[in-house]
């Protein structure tokens, strides 16, 4: 890949900031080598962080990034690294820390594109986590100069946020003035219609919901939205006592879709609203055959006998009410069993049983429920941000607990290693001390200086014989002795021939020594230099050995202290993790139980109504009988 700075930056900010839809195409793009010069790595350690980041291993990436930052290993990539750090925090669900970094960074000289993306994804994560004020503040920092798709989603998030806070007027204002990508228009119109209905402005809402309810599409998502729009509009009309208008709209809901049960219920009510109970029975009886888990089906257990009752078929009405009471009884028993099962505390571990445990990402979501009795009641709960985010927290706490377990083993090994080092040090110490004591660096230095001085003297006095070989020096000394003898007998005529021979031999010897003197001098000087270098290296090593000797106990002690401190931190964090994990477990368990209790209360209410109506039928029957036989 040609590492062009801009592209890298885009990957960094896009990739993580975060698992971004818009950036997804940037992944796996085959690099195009044409025309782009190779880009050198600026900081090896930053590249190392990216290596883990590009594998979606955000936990390793952030650990390495923080370590590199602490060790000043990112001299050329500080800015990018800080932005990446914010993104990594966000990826790991650490939105508070990510927000702190972004707020510090994004007001400076960051490009508008980067700023927009960072604020957008921060706002999105905050929205999912229910930090609505923070989310709104972040989303409002995003300018309109952004990818249209992200811009559309941003407006939608803002509108949904306002609706969650029941600020329908604000939502209506935001959605009415929005003109975005066509594929988002349906969502905007739907939400606008809902906001208007909530403000009891049905007449204004109808055109928007009706338009969404008529869209032509083959997209499953839009078909689902279309069903929801028809359903919402149909029920809004029913509530406004406009049954005749509601029916055709409810009939637009697909029979095989997820909203068909509710639509069947509504169609029945539309017929009932028009007084046609016989016709109302058609969808309601169809509905009654479906799974009792569906609230619309539960309601049909009441509406069917109600319709029979209205048609004066009291016997059938009584039968259906009795059957409803029995079914509700059985269903409540199943819910009670499920609540008990959840109270035993294994819900979350069972939910996460098939989870791939080695990754942490902000967009993780549980997609399948375990095959357990309580699962059938939890689909609704699972769709909620609150439960999903809580479950994500629980999962992350488990991941971190395992992470600390692994480190705990390593830290024990460090202790052993430090002990071993100490033993080795104690064993080596006498030898080291002996070598250091025998090494007289000052004497060696003095010898070198003397040697160099001697060479200088030889050169200055041109003492060619001083650099001769041992044989040459021996010969030179013999010649010197002969010379002295001849000099002592200057008048001896027998020495005349010897004098001539000596003169000749000394001349030859001197010539030989002179001829090699310069080369020998150069060699000697080189030896002096080598000796000097060796001496310096010896001095350096001696200093290192002395330093190591002195530092070893301190180092070992310091490391020992650090290891002990870090072990204490591990233990303390482990306790906190366990405690918070239990709190999270209890919290999610309580959410699940609350969901089930809610379902139970609703069924109980239906059951009371069924009993009441059954009693009323019996009363009427009892009152009618005396009149029948006067």
């Amino acid at each position, binding site marked *: 890949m040609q590492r062009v700075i801009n592209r890298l930056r885009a990957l960094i900010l896009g990739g993580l900031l975060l698992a971004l839809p818009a950036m997804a195409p940037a992944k796996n793009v085959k690099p195009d080598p044409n025309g782009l010069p190779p880009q050198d790595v600026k900081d090896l350690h930053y590249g190392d962080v990216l290596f883990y980041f590009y594998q979606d291993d955000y936990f390793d990436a952030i650990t390495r990034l923080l370590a590199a930052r602490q060790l000043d290993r990112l001299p050329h990539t500080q800015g990018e690294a800080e932005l990446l750090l914010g993104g990594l925090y966000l990826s790991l669900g650490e939105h508070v*820390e990510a927000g702190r970094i972004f707020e510090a960074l994004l007001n400076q000289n960051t490009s508008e594109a980067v700023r927009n993306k960072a604020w957008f994804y921060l706002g999105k994560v905050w929205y999912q986590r229910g930090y609505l004020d923070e989310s709104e503040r972040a989303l409002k920092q995003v300018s309109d100069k952004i990818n249209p798709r992200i811009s559309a989603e941003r407006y939608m998030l803002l509108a949904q946020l306002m609706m969650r806070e029941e600020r329908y007027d604000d939502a209506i204002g935001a959605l009415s003035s929005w003109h975005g990508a066509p594929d988002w228009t349906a969502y905007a119109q739907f939400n606008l219609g809902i906001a208007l209905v909530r403000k009891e402005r049905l007449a204004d809402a109808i055109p928007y919901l009706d338009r969404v309810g008529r869209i032509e599409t083959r997209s499953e998502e839009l078909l689902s939205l279309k069903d929801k729009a028809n359903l919402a509009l149909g029920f809004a009309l029913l509530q406004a006592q406009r049954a005749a208008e509601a029916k055709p709209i409810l009939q637009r809901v697909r029979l095989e879709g997820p909203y068909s049960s*509710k639509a069947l219920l509504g169609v029945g009510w539309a017929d009932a609203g028009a007084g046609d109970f016989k016709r109302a029975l058609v969808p309601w009886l169809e509905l009654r055959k479906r799974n009792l888990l569906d609230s619309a089906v539960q309601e049909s257990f009441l509406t069917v006998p109600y319709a029979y009752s209205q048609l004066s078929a009291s016997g059938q009405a009584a039968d259906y009410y009795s059957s409803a009471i029995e079914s509700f009884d059985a269903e409540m028993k199943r819910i009670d069993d499920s609540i008990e099962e959840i109270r035993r505390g294994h819900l979350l571990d069972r939910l996460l049983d098939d989870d791939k445990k080695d990754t942490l990402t902000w967009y993780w979501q549980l997609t399948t429920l375990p095959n357990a009795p309580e699962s059938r009641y939890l689909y609704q709960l699972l769709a909620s941000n609150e439960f999903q985010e809580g479950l994500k927290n629980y999962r992350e706490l488990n991941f971190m607990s395992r992470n600390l377990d692994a480190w705990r083993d390593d830290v024990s090994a460090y202790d052993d290693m430090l002990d071993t080092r100490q033993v080795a040090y104690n064993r080596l110490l006498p030898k080291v001390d002996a070598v250091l004591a025998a090494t007289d660096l000052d004497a060696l230095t003095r010898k070198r200086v003397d040697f160099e001085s001697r060479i200088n003297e030889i050169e200055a006095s041109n003492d060619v014989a001083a650099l001769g070989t041992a044989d040459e020096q021996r010969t030179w000394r013999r010649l010197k002795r002969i010379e002295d003898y001849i000099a002592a007998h200057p008048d001896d005529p027998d020495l005349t021939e010897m004098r001539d021979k000596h003169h000749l031999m000394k001349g030859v010897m001197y010539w030989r020594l002179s001829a090699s003197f310069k080369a020998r001098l150069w060699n000697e000087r080189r030896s002096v230099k080598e000796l000097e270098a060796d001496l310096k290296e010896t001095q350096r090593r001696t200093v290192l050995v002395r330093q190591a000797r002195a530092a070893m106990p301190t180092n070992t002690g310091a490391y020992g202290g650090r290891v002990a401190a870090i072990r204490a931190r591990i233990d303390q964090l482990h306790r906190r993790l366990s405690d918070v994990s239990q709190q999270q477990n209890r919290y999610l368990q309580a959410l699940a139980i609350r969901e089930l209790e809610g379902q139970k209360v609703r069924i109980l209410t239906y059951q009371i109504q069924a009993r009441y109506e059954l009693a009323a039928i019996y009363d009427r029957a009892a009152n009618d009988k005396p009149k029948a036989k006067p």
Partner: protein
Amino acid sequence: MNFKHRVVSIIARAALLAYAGAALAAPQAPAAAAASAAAAAAPAPAPAAVPAIAPPADAPGAPPGDFKTLDQEVQGLKKDVIDLNKDLFVLQEELLFPANTQVALYVSMDVGAFFALNSVTIKIDNKVVTNYLYTAREADALLKGGVQQVYLGNLKVGKHELVAFFTGKGPIERDYKRGATISFEKGVGAKYLELKITDHVAKHQPEFSIKDWE
């Protein structure tokens, strides 16, 4: 209010609220955006349930409490664990690979049009120190600009020789094996060497080199 009106009123109002509420929980992205990893990972939205007619009861003895409070506690805790991991990482490196003996080898890849990396074998002073086989995911991370620390070890101060052998698929999908070598001096500070794989566009061949980071 008679039974009929009561039931109609309750059900219609409750359903309306539920359906409006469901809209908020609706998929927030249209189909085109559904390609996003997040959207793809999201479960299909569950059908809207009619809310309870009576207020739901909290589980006895275990009130749900405040999500935000708990979430903030989790945030703080996670931050502490991340910081601890950083400190452990630094301690581990200082303890096992002190700077005066540390040598770290990195692999980087630029372009990669002429070479698909399968494995790398590294020898220091004629001794194999690592033999690394790449997964597709790792090779992809290198292509995107990641730099892999392929070896972290200790070396004595002085002269050393490193030889790296790269194997993979070269141009026209042919098996390809090439080497690169460097003599380097290990001083008292940490030594970093980068094994670089680049494309030689003119020759239509990959190039392998080793950079000594001073």
